[in-house]
């Protein structure tokens, strides 16, 4: 081929005398920025619809009809466009717009939190008038009003850019703040007594171009010039990119960073404000061992007392050695690890599988999906999953509650791109009317409904209802996904049913043409844990047992116990040492009774954690770990995207990074894991894990979007026999459990700004079911199952299908785990007024 001639349809734009080629449909403001010319702006935000509110982006544009001032955020590039961003006319416009915006803006920068990072301040310095000519009264408002628990609004500072209100309605779908009044009286406000109750409200603070919106956790804490900043990853399943900002060794703020692959700059409030827990006084700061009343280490003592690392490690080493001598490697189990970085997970996997020699390792607490399935099913990136012309099947907990930024990305794609979404979950998700078709199978029957959907896509339309879903709905869903590549967002939607219906459904959906998966596992770095081998039957790099990884002394050859198996073995006396690595089975294991019996029966429980949660408090030896922002490493998100976790502050007391604790313990057991830094662990991962071959720590850190870990994998997850359907009798309801954004999780409860946002547990029922039971909103009922009974208030909710009852996990008031029968596929409940 010769040099390509200029394309006939090229969009040539001349910017300050230099010509460049714009992308089709590109906005002038973006095209200029891409070509090195930043046009000042307030209202324009690249992740929201342009509205042309502020006029700051006026530039002199000639499209052949003479030069005129045009807002570059509202103007699509056209061929032959000439743009002057430095001309007298443009400068005069910028100066004028700023003077106009400053008419009502208070000059309180010295006492304003935004001072030093304020676009209005900065752009006034660069483009605005030096002095004010305005001598009249500015407008005044009551200072500041809370728009919700954590966000404050100083209305007189607002320049009416419509960013916060646009975010609320367009991005978050919570239009609870709105412009009110008109003209120079216009203000942003909520409806009286109806707060801006959005899980995403903190984003408005980040994008407000002035100091009108501020967040309580950061108000008056610091000025930008006091802050040091590092770019990192929030360890959630989406792997949201963030900036961690600290001053004097304290994290003071977390902000979203725009990664095109993941979060687009957004964060949930829970993640944004969770930094408060980092410096909580209740953090574990020293190792703890049994001791006497005087605080001296004493194995016979009932208390946990502070000990040195040497003593605690030596005790742990001795306990593990004794267990190995007595019961062999199978007498030891490692439970947890999803909180950890990939490096720490690898170190713990190596410790458990190579040094101790046990395959009893599980980072999921019986609330996820089989690791081999997650590791072997085809995946797709989020951007590919949401590409125009795609379809998504949502088969997980409500992303609004558990996968916040995924929810925002889904909302965006459903509104702005040609994608379809079929819900295959027990209750309607927070996507509401954006969902194309909602199939809400009766709990336990997701597998048969998925099968019917796959058959319908293949042309065999159902003739009768399936699993509580009408034939018409299944046909409509088949039409919605037909001919489109399907991505299944797959997780455990409810812990009141066993994993098998979901596994059946996933196996069926995998047969759809072009099907791929994004596994929505709840805990922070569950995907890293699976990739690093923190699962029974897996070794690092998505490979099964068999060969011994390079550099390992040994590796198990027989698949070990999963979380449930370990707890049962502990109860039976076959497992004598249980190591909890950042896990709290008493609070999180679906079978609470089994967890508590296991922890009491087990000879020794060793815990590695940040806080003394319930399970840690009942442990025998406790190691304090360095947590988020206190230790470096990498994180893996649900696409398999590896991105850096950056260390910013010092861990409290003598807490150590988890990978160091693993190395220390290995040393006590007479082995050397061979690591001297996080990088050295990463380097070993790259050589050992085939999935990670070719990656480098520096490359991962250099790309804002991280690096993708891909199969292919030799693993094969044979789909089990489909689960038999259990009929529901006419008097019972079928239980569904879910997790809500704010609950009694250790992290949330150690953040003063969020601790009281968790509501009490309620039983959500379809309003008709509530009527049938004579249970009005708020009335107290007793819920009875074969396993137990609890008492809690009723909440009628049309999102719940008839015949189901939803109770959130991990909230105060009542624990639905008491109702779950762990031998059954589903849990049926009866409701009686009490």
């Amino acid at each position, binding site marked *: 081929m010769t040099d390509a001639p200029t394309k006939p349809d090229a969009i040539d734009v001349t910017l300050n005398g230099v010509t460049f080629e714009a992308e089709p449909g590109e906005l002038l403001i973006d095209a200029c920025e891409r070509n090195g010319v930043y046009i000042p702006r307030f209202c324009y935000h690249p992740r929201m619809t342009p509205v042309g509110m502020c006029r700051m982006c006026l530039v002199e544009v000639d499209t052949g009809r003479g030069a005129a001032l045009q807002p570059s955020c509202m103007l699509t590039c056209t061929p032959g466009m000439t743009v002057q961003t430095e001309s007298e006319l443009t400068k005069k416009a910028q100066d004028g717009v700023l003077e106009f915006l400053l008419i009502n803006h208070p000059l309180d920068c010295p006492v304003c939190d935004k001072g030093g990072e304020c676009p209005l301040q900065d752009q006034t310095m660069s483009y605005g008038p030096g002095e004010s000519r305005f001598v009249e009264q500015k407008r005044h408002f009551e200072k500041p009003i809370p728009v919700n628990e954590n966000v404050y609004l100083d209305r007189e500072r607002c320049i009416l850019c419509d960013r916060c209100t646009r975010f609320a309605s367009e991005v978050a779908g919570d239009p609870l703040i709105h412009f009110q009044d008109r003209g120079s009286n216009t203000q942003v406000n909520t*409806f009286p007594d109806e707060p801006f109750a959005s899980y995403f409200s903190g984003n408005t603070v980040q994008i407000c171009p002035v100091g009108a919106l501020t967040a309580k956790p950061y108000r008056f804490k610091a000025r930008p010039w006091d802050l040091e900043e590092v770019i990192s990853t929030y360890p959630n399943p989406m792997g949201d990119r963030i900036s961690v900002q600290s001053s004097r060794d304290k994290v003071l703020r977390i902000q979203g960073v725009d990664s095109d692959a993941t979060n687009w700059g957004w964060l949930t409030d829970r993640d944004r404000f969770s930094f408060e827990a980092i410096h909580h006084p209740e953090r574990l700061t020293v190792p703890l061992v049994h001791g006497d009343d005087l605080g001296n280490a004493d194995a016979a003592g009932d208390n946990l007392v502070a000990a040195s690392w040497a003593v605690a490690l030596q005790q742990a080493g001795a306990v593990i050695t004794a267990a190995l001598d007595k019961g062999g490697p199978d007498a030891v189990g490692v439970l947890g690890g999803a909180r950890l970085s990939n490096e720490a997970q690898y170190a713990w996997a190596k410790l458990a599988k190579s040094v101790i020699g046990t395959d009893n390792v599980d980072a999921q607490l019986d609330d996820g999906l089989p690791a081999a399935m997650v590791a072997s099913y085809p995946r797709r990136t989020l951007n590919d999953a949401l590409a125009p012309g795609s379809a998504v099947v949502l088969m997980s907990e409500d992303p609004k509650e558990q996968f916040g930024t995924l929810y925002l990305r889904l909302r965006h794609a459903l509104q702005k791109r040609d994608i379809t979404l079929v819900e295959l979950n027990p209750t309607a998700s927070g996507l509401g009317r954006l969902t194309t078709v909602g199939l809400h199978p009766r709990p336990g029957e997701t597998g048969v409904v998925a099968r019917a959907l796959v058959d319908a896509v293949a042309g065999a339309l159902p003739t009768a209802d399936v699993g509580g879903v009408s034939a018409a709905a299944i046909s409509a869903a088949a039409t919605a996904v037909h001919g489109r590549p399907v991505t299944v967002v797959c997780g455990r939607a409810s812990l009141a049913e066993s994993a098998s219906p979901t596994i059946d459904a996933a196996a069926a959906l995998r047969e759809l043409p072009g099907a791929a998966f994004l596994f929505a596992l709840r805990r922070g770095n569950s995907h890293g844990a699976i990739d690093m081998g923190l699962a029974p039957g897996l070794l690092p790099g998505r490979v099964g047992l068999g060969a011994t990884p390079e550099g390992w002394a040994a590796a198990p050859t027989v698949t070990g116990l999963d979380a449930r198996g370990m707890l049962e073995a502990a109860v039976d006396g076959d497992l004598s040492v249980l190591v909890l690595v950042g896990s709290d089975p008493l609070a999180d294991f679906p079978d609470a009774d089994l967890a508590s019996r296991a922890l009491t029966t087990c000879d020794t429980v060793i815990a590695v954690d940040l806080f003394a949660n319930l399970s840690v408090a009942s442990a025998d030896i406790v190691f304090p770990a360095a947590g988020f922002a206190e230790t470096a490493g990498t994180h893996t998100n649900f696409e398999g995207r590896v991105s850096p976790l950056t260390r910013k502050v010092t861990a409290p007391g003598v807490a150590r990074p988890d990978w160091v604790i693993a190395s220390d313990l290995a040393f006590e057991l007479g082995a050397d894991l061979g690591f001297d830094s996080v990088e050295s662990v990463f380097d070993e991962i790259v050589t050992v894990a085939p999935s990670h071959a070719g990656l480098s720590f520096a490359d991962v850190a250099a790309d804002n979007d991280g690096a993708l870990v891909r199969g292919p994998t030799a693993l094969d997850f044979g789909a089990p026999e489909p689960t038999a359907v259990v009929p529901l009798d006419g008097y019972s309801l079928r239980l569904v459990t879910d997790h809500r954004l704010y609950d009694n999780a250790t992290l949330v409860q150690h953040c003063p700004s969020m601790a009281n946002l968790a509501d009490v547990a309620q039983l959500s029922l379809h309003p008709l079911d509530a009527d049938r039971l004579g249970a009005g909103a708020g009335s107290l009922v007793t819920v009875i199952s074969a396993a137990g009974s609890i008492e809690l208030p009723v909440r009628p909710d049309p999102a719940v299908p008839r015949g189901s009852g939803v109770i959130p996990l991990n909230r105060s008031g009542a624990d639905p785990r008491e109702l779950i029968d762990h031998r059954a596929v589903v849990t049926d409940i009866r409701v009686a007024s009490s």
Partner: protein
Amino acid sequence: MSRFNADNLIVAESIIRRYPVAKSALIPLLHLAQEQDGYVADDAMAHIAELVGVTPAEVVGTCTFYEMFKRHPVGTYVVNICTNISCLVLGGEELLHHAEKSLGVRAGGTTDDGLFTLEDVECIAACTEAPCLQVNYRYRYRLTTDDFDELIDGLRTGRITDVPHHGVLARIRQQIADDRLAGVVAPELATEAPVWLAASDAGGAGS
């Protein structure tokens, strides 16, 4: 005060049915709420939000954009006196001062008996009839101060019966025959001209 009462709820629902998108009924419903209570109560806005499927914040945003929607109780009669150019030149200011004195309230205030709210307004588009005013948006033209006193007296004694209480607008309760409903189809889904267009083409040629 309150949400829609049972009768008004029926009217509200019929108003909503006129539009392909329920949200379009917001403004007529705000008028209906104002008719019911004399002003737009917060509870009424919350009710409207439920009826048209938006948040109360969106309703209050729309409501506050318009001067004619009062968010707080006003007098039974809202008297708007124009003091813009035409009226000013022909005695609008004097009329306003007279009104303030005779009613005993400043512009913007409500008389103690709750009968009259006085407002000083800009041009109400009846400049040829200056000075003029509106009482509950019913016009009175070329007023002298005596005319004003007589108007107030007539309203107070009930002699004037053609001015309903504040909030009542003729157009809110209009009946639209089914065959003239503009086809309750979202514009982007419409395949043919609305029925009223066809009807006016057939019946109204040349008019």
